């Protein structure tokens, strides 16, 4: 199945999807050293997002989150790509400075955790294998 959305940041990545219905705050909500979600009560609490295609509805929290994403990229703990329902400034800027492929305006109900997906940030498409 190929889903079409909007390109946010270029690049192609193929990896396992990790999907959540909760918003993500990279600043404070994700540990940049381990790549694990640490927000108490979050659907993904304790799970690693490193090297995966992170699929979620929207970002939240402090603008410092963009720098957290950059730090994850440098630590090799960043997601391989980001698929988001509705992009915001923090996630967009985080993807651009960290060079993480990103597509938004995707119906994330079509993607399940564990599926292999190909994100094409240059075309704005997400292929579920």
């Amino acid at each position, binding site marked *: 199945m190929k889903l079409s959305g*909007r390109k*946010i*940041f270029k690049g192609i990545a193929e990896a396992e999807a990790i999907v959540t219905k909760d918003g993500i705050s990279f600043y404070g909500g994700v540990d*940049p050293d381990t790549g694990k979600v640490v927000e108490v009560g979050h659907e993904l609490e304790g799970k690693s997002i490193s090297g995966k295609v992170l699929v979620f509805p929207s970002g939240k929290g402090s*603008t*410092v989150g*963009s*720098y*957290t994403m*950059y*730090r*994850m*990229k*440098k*630590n090799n703990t960043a997601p391989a790509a980001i698929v988001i329902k509705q*992009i915001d*400034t*923090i996630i*967009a*800027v985080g993807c*651009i*400075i960290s060079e993480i492929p990103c597509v*938004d305006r995707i119906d994330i109900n079509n993607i399940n955790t564990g599926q292999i997906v190909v994100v094409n940030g240059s075309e704005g498409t997400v292929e579920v294998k």
Partner: protein
Amino acid sequence: MKLTSEEQDMLDGKYGKSAKKSMEILATLGEIFDAECMVDVVGVQIAGVSYANLGEAGLEFLSEMAEDGKVRVLTTLNPAGMDRENWQALGIDKEFAKNQNRAIDAFAKMGIITTCSCTPYLIGNTPHFGQHLAWAESSAVCYANSVIGARTNREGGPSALASAIIGKTPKYGYHLDENRHGEVLVKVNAQVKGTDEFGVLGKIIGDKLVELGKKTPYITGISRATVEELKSFCASVATYGGTALFHMEGITPEYNKYPKPSDIIFEINQDNLDKTRLELIDDDINIDFVSIGCPHASIHEIGKIANLLKGKKVKKEFWITTARPTKRIADEAGYSKIIEDAGAKFAADTCCVVAPIKGRFKGIMVDSAKACYYGRSKNKFKVKIGSIEECIEEATG
């Protein structure tokens, strides 16, 4: 979004690496928010300066941008994590100080004025009515849009830096007339007075806006407000409500430019103010830290503090956080000596929100509703709000 040929060249890397990265940020934001074009900005205010927030990664990003990045417009900085001259006396460790200075040096290398203040509008980054800006620092954004009538969105650290390097910002949001009208009519039926009470008012309005899912209040019933009261109000309403713009009848310059909202009306009386004030006073608080200057204290406030402290001694840790240029004026006016003779300390360039002071104190007393929010959430302090007079009484009593 339409790009000029120069903008396209920047995006293609013809103006260097930093300009390319900056244009990528601005062009993407422009696409996301349906901007038609870029608009020139006259000034930039950058947030994300404290090493406590930047971390090594943020610092690395800044260092890379500083390799060939130079700002094209007047650009100033938000508070850092420490007083750049007096950090040792304020208990900041050496390693932190070293890293903080590395961050500030990277900003300086790009041609940024390293003022380190959340009140750029008091110290020379002072736009006039209608000018376009790219400011981060939510309280300053609110002040610029509302009190000055300039135009800026709420930028983050990297997008503000990108605008500084390009000299432009995508034209959407608060840059456009259509997004600047009031959405909620707030009728204040009380005589609001003092920085603390204006902060309490900001919390009431901010909380209500979040509940309503609205951003821009149109406030009536305030007959007078000082610069200091307005800066406190801006900080509070931005913290609690995410508000970037308000109109205040008879006070702010655009209040009669747009129609008064009439479908959503919300009233505030003295009883509401008193009740909300109690929400900013924790039970069983044991105050061991008093801090004034969130947002950074003006020279007028420092003069007032000097007057109140004259001949007294503080018995608790007492910080006055301000911009370094304001501190220099205070030195020349003789205020600093009076204040320091009383045992109070200046913490210039920094503030009680961004300094790494978590765990050092148990209870903080402030005149700022914004400082209450971050004192609780970020530093895990118990908090108490009071007027400047009450803060000084607490410290000296």
